[in-house]
């Protein structure tokens, strides 16, 4: 009986031992895998970081000899990579005071938004911001982007002569300003009041105009005509805001290379004629020569948040002027069909 008992005991011990071995093996396999995963994850992250750093260094050193188009392509690739980090894109659209060290604006590899960053025509940021009353004697003339600004920024003062599709040609010649008596020309509308500041936002609908000399001459002639009508007004010329090419692909000429080109012309004109240049792309650029992601539904027209930021920008980028107008608002609201025809007629006679 005794040896039988011993045998049974040994058998049980062996079974327990085998079970323990199996459990240990399972634990070793799983734990080991976990430890392995931890190690491999750490090393792959640091490797990826090293690769990214090297990639940036190569592209920044290589960009010296790159053409503008190549740089833009490189920048777009870099941007796409950075877009995977949630929130970074949004931060890029905020005014400077909200941006962090990771925002593209502070990246030395970002593209400048103006052809001459040191141009004296560029309106710098003031230490203090004005309020809406600064615009009480201002008139805003421009295309649908300016109209969107009026609609969505929350601005409460100022007169707006805007029109969807306004180009240089239609701004000069066509009845595109809506009144209770029908549409009238910009010059006729401008004649209906007295203003101290004229804000111009034009050029998006002229991006397909490759005869840039013609655009330049036409723009100067139009501004001179406006200055004749409002001799005491200062003229602010807003930069053409970048577009999101991926969304605005329906027309090939609506691209950021053309935006840069037209902006360099506008800046030149401002320097030559003592107008004031407002570089809106300072806060609307993604840092790589394109409109920041998520700023527009169609790649051109800005969402309300960005229109509000534009208003903040105008309030902090301004020139002190003594108001010689003030009465303009009430007068301009009473533009009648009779006035319209008179103005148009007098314009025609002058042109003739």
């Amino acid at each position, binding site marked *: 009986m005794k040896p039988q008992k011993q045998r049974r005991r040994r058998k049980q011990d062996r079974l327990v031992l085998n079970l323990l071995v199996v459990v240990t093996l399972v634990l070793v396999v799983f734990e080991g895998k976990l430890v392995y995963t931890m190690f491999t994850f750490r090393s792959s992250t640091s490797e990826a970081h090293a690769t990214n750093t090297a990639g940036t260094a190569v592209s920044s050193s290589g960009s010296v000899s790159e053409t503008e188009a190549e740089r833009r392509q490189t920048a777009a690739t870099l941007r796409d990579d950075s877009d995977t980090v949630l929130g970074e894109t949004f931060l890029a659209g905020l005014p400077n005071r909200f941006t962090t060290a990771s925002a593209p604006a502070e990246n030395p590899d970002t593209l400048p938004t103006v052809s001459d960053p040191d141009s004296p025509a560029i309106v710098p940021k003031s230490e203090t911001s004005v309020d809406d009353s600064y615009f009480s004697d201002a008139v805003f003339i421009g295309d649908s982007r300016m109209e*969107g600004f*009026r609609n969505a920024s929350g601005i*409460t003062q100022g007169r707006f002569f805007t029109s*969807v599709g306004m180009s240089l040609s239609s701004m000069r010649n066509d009845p595109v300003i809506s009144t209770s008596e029908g*549409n009238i020309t910009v010059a006729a509308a401008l004649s209906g009041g007295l203003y101290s500041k004229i804000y111009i936002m034009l050029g998006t609908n002229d991006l397909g105009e490759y005869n840039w000399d013609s655009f330049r001459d036409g723009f100067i002639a139009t501004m001179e005509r406006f200055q004749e009508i409002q001799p005491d007004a200062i003229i602010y010329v807003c930069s053409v805001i970048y577009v999101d090419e991926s969304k605005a692909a329906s027309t090939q000429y609506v691209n950021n290379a053309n935006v840069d080109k037209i902006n360099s012309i506008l800046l030149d004109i401002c320097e030559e004629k003592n107008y004031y240049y407002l570089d809106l792309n300072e806060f609307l650029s993604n840092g790589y020569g394109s409109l920041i992601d998520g700023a527009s539904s169609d790649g*051109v*027209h800005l969402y309300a948040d960005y229109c509000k930021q534009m208003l903040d920008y105008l309030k902090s980028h301004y020139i002190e002027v003594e108001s010689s107008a003030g009465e303009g608002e009430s007068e301009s609201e009473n533009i009648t069909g009779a006035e319209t025809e008179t103005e148009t007629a007098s314009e025609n006679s002058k042109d003739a």
Partner: protein
Amino acid sequence: MRKGTMLLCAAVAMLSLTACGGKKEDISVDTAKLTKELLTTVSSDELSETASDMLPSIYFYEPDDVTSAVAYASSGATACEIAVIESKDAKNTEAVEKLLQTRVDNQSALYASYNEAEVSRLDDAIIESAGAYTVLCVCDDKDAAEKILESYGF
């Protein structure tokens, strides 16, 4: 005979009441609520509220003639817009309707050379009044907008 006359009178009275029920002359509308509901009929654009100080120059009304006005407009991408204007005097709504029609006509003329697809949207613009209120609605779902307006007594 008497029964027949009574029935006829009742029928006439019922018909008269039904005719009056179409448009309420003296109604009170929560303009903010109505505007928010009408916004649901716009799917192709994201409209933003425009500062009320800007509205007289957009819709051409005299501020002195209006009690309140709310408007939501496009960022420029489409012709969609919603405006609810409460006149001080209900008799003024006809004039406001004309001004809103001018606004629509002007926009149609401008969009014709810019984005023709928006012209048909403007052709479907709703301009309706009830009591002292006048509504302009340029949207994607006209039928839904009309149902909403009907529920408010327009």
